[in-house]
């Protein structure tokens, strides 16, 4: 190094300047990073910091064979910023209207309205806060329109929280509030949205969100339930297992740039979303379809007030199908009128009726189980009065007068549904024990059915029984009312060999990868009657669905069908001559039912199904103006059973013929 340049003075000066410059930089850095740190970080936090919400996808509800009953589909909330629209695009509005499913005049009105009167709703501060938090929607928006789309996404999601979907800017000088975003449709599918973006209309933005879809519309509507537009589960399985279905939202803490785009490299914390679990039901969509088509047929023929059909596996308690009439479309629940709102009630569990003769299974089972009678024990069913506990009691009338000319056996009492015979059986059992058996059969208490606001029905406590109760209760009148699901459960006691099983709908809950999180099995509540008594009762109930029984309409050649009809007079308001209105049994209004199962004597490895058909008030359109369970409900039982036999491969019970079955191609023999 030459001495001329590298003089001590110059070098020292240069070095000092450099050091000073670095020192200055250092001081500035200390200033920024230490002294002004709090203020600057606060500013940065405010401007650049963002928390991106990662919404969890709600789980699916599937049937027994994994057919989707409810799922979440990606939908686009389509909106417009009226101030960003170009006059050149107006020619594309008809195409947009057609794609979005909006009438053109409505669309034009939405797009040309640029201001709202001063009285319009003001977004609350909370809404603005959510707008900041809603930025995550931006990554989902269409590429190429990132910043406006992000803004639109913010606006769309912020608007979702407000009563009004329209997002307004601050008032201008005249007090009018410019419209920043107006919703056009929230039901745009991905494919439609692609077509809309291809139109290239400036100011039209969409943001993706998940919406609940019910591909089968009305199918099992009362079981599946629905999620409303606010994405809150309202009823059915959707509501019952919401905890499993909903999943947990995730979130990402990150920073954004001046274009409101996330700077992914500055992600600090990331909690991935946990998608909801899938719920598998015991409902079989095919069986459910059969049930609903049978309900349609009943509705068409009788125009009843309401009707219910339940199909279940009596050995496990799992419900294969549950249908109600009237029903509703899960995708159009919000289109029901106020009068039609009641269609959403699950009348199978929230509506009670007097079960009528089906209840006779309790008296007969109790008497047989206690060993007080055998199937051949005879009772005089022509008596008008009988002495019970030292008092003379009036026996109920029979449905068909002078029918029973000789003393009836227990088997005949059941087969011909004798009211007097059932009353005598109950008297033999005694008040207390008969009441206990009725309770044990599940009457007067909830079954634990998971959906539909279940009621307990009515079984009048023993202390409130009057002198007539022991004669009327055995025929299912007066002191007892039950829901259709309770009747199904009670008949299931006989079909299952004496066990009361809790009716169930959910078979398993699994995660998105198909790993089973929880599996449900049969839930035995209690043993009600012995296995031998149940077998005997099955045999007795076979007599009902036979040529010589009370419901030959339910007989299926080649199969042993066990069941019981029920025809209960409805209690209707009656005005007395004094003007007082009382409740009285009507001769013009009935609830008819048939609850049965087949094959009655299926082996342990053979399929057995139980079907309950309940039709409320079919009288008006019934032949000859009067109805019986055998005429209204039993034929539906048979129709359904005939459809179920090939589908479920139900083979004749061991009592009929022990043989496998073959399905022939094309129905050839």
């Amino acid at each position, binding site marked *: *190094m030459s*001495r001329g340049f*590298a*003089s*001590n003075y110059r*070098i*020292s000066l*240069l*070095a000092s300047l*450099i*050091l000073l410059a670095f020192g200055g930089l250092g001081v500035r850095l200390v200033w920024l990073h230490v002294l002004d740190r709090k203020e600057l970080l606060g500013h940065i936090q405010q401007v650049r910091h963002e928390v991106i919400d990662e919404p969890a*996808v709600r789980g699916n509800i599937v049937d027994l064979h994994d*057919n*989707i009953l409810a*799922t*979440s*589909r*990606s939908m686009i909330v389509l909106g417009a910023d009226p101030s960003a629209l170009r006059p050149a695009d107006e020619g594309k509005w008809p195409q947009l209207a057609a794609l979005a499913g909006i009438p053109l005049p409505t669309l034009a009105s939405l797009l040309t309205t640029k201001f709202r009167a001063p009285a319009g709703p003001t977004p609350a501060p909370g809404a603005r806060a959510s707008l900041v938090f809603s930025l995550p929607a931006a*990554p*989902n928006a269409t590429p190429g329109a990132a910043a406006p789309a992000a803004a639109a996404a913010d606006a769309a999601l912020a608007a979702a929280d407000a009563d009004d979907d329209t997002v307004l800017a601050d008032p201008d000088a005249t007090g009018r509030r410019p419209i920043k975003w107006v919703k056009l449709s929230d039901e745009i*599918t*991905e*494919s439609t949205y692609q077509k809309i973006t291809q139109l290239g209309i400036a100011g039209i933005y969409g943001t*993706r969100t998940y919406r609940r*879809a019910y*591909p*089968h*519309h009305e*199918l099992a509507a009362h079981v599946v339930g629905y999620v409303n537009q606010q994405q809150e589960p309202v009823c059915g399985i959707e509501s019952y297992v919401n905890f499993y279905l909903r999943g947990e939202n995730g979130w990402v803490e990150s920073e954004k740039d001046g274009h409101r785009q*996330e*700077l*992914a*490299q500055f*992600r600090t914390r990331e909690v991935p979303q946990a998608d909801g679990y899938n719920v598998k039901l015991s409902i079989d*969509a*095919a069986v459910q*379809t059969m049930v609903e088509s049978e309900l349609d047929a009943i509705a068409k023929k009788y125009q009843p007030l309401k009707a219910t059909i339940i199909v279940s596996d009596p050995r496990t308690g799992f419900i294969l199908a549950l249908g109600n009439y009237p029903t509703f479309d899960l995708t159009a629940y919000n289109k029901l009128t106020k009068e039609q709102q009641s269609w959403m009630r699950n009348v199978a569990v929230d509506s009670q009726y007097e079960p009528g003769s089906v209840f006779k299974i309790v008296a007969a089972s109790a008497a047989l189980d206690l060993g007080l009678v055998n199937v051949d024990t005879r009772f005089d069913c022509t008596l008008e009065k009988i002495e019970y506990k030292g008092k003379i009691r009036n026996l109920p009338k029979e449905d068909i007068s002078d029918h029973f000319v000789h003393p009836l056996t227990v088997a005949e009492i059941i087969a011909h549904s004798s009211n007097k015979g059932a009353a005598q059986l109950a008297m033999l059992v005694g008040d207390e024990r008969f009441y206990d058996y009725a309770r044990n059969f599940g009457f007067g208490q909830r079954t634990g059915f998971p959906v539909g606001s279940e009621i307990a029905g009515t079984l009048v406590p023993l202390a409130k029984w009057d002198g007539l109760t022991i004669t009327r209760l055995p025929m299912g009148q007066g002191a007892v009312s039950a829901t259709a699901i309770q009747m199904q459960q009670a008949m299931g006691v006989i079909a299952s060999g004496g066990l009361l099983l809790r009716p169930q709908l959910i078979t398993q809950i699994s995660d998105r990868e198909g790993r089973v999180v929880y599996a449900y099995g049969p839930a035995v509540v209690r043993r009600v009657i012995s296995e031998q008594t149940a077998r005997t009762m099955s045999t007795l109930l076979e007599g009902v669905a036979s040529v010589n029984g009370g419901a030959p309409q339910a007989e299926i050649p*080649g199969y042993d069908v066990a069941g019981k009809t029920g025809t209960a007079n409805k209690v209707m308001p009656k005005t007395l001559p004094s003007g007082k209105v009382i409740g009285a049994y009507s001769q013009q209004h009935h609830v008819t039912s048939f609850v049965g199962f087949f094959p009655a004597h299926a082996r342990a490895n053979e399929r057995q199904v139980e079907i309950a058909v309940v039709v409320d008030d079919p009288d008006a359109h019934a032949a000859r103006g009067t109805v019986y369970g055998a005429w209204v409900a039993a034929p539906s039982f048979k129709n359904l059973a*005939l*459809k179920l*036999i*090939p*589908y479920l491969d139900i*083979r*004749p019970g061991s009592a009929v*013929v022990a*043989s*496998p*079955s*073959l*399905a*022939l191609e094309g*129905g050839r*023999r």
Partner: protein
Amino acid sequence: MNSSSRSAFANHLLIYTLVAIGFSGSIGVGTVWLQHQISLVAKANKAIEAKLKDCERQSEQATTEIAEEQDVSVLLARNATWRLGLIPPGKEAVQQVTEDPIAHMVLKHNREVFAEANPANSLAPISLRLALQR
């Protein structure tokens, strides 16, 4: 370089300062480059993530559409529109057999085969006589 005179300290200071500047500068450039790479990778990850989500959405959309197409009312409409003539299976399509179903099917199939081979079914029954010789 003068390393023994009085200017040695200044020379060293200058050299070390320049080295330090160069070193810290290269560290700075390296850091910037590294951050740029991190940014690119993060962006690429984000893009892949978005693409995956998009695929999931498309898949869910397709699943829903398939489920809708499998709805009974839709299938019945298709059956009518396309005149497929499909009918739901009924009890009459099931034949109860008393023997082993496999044996039954084999027997049935073979019967048809023999019937085709000999439509007149004119084969005389064959009887074999066994004679035991001692």
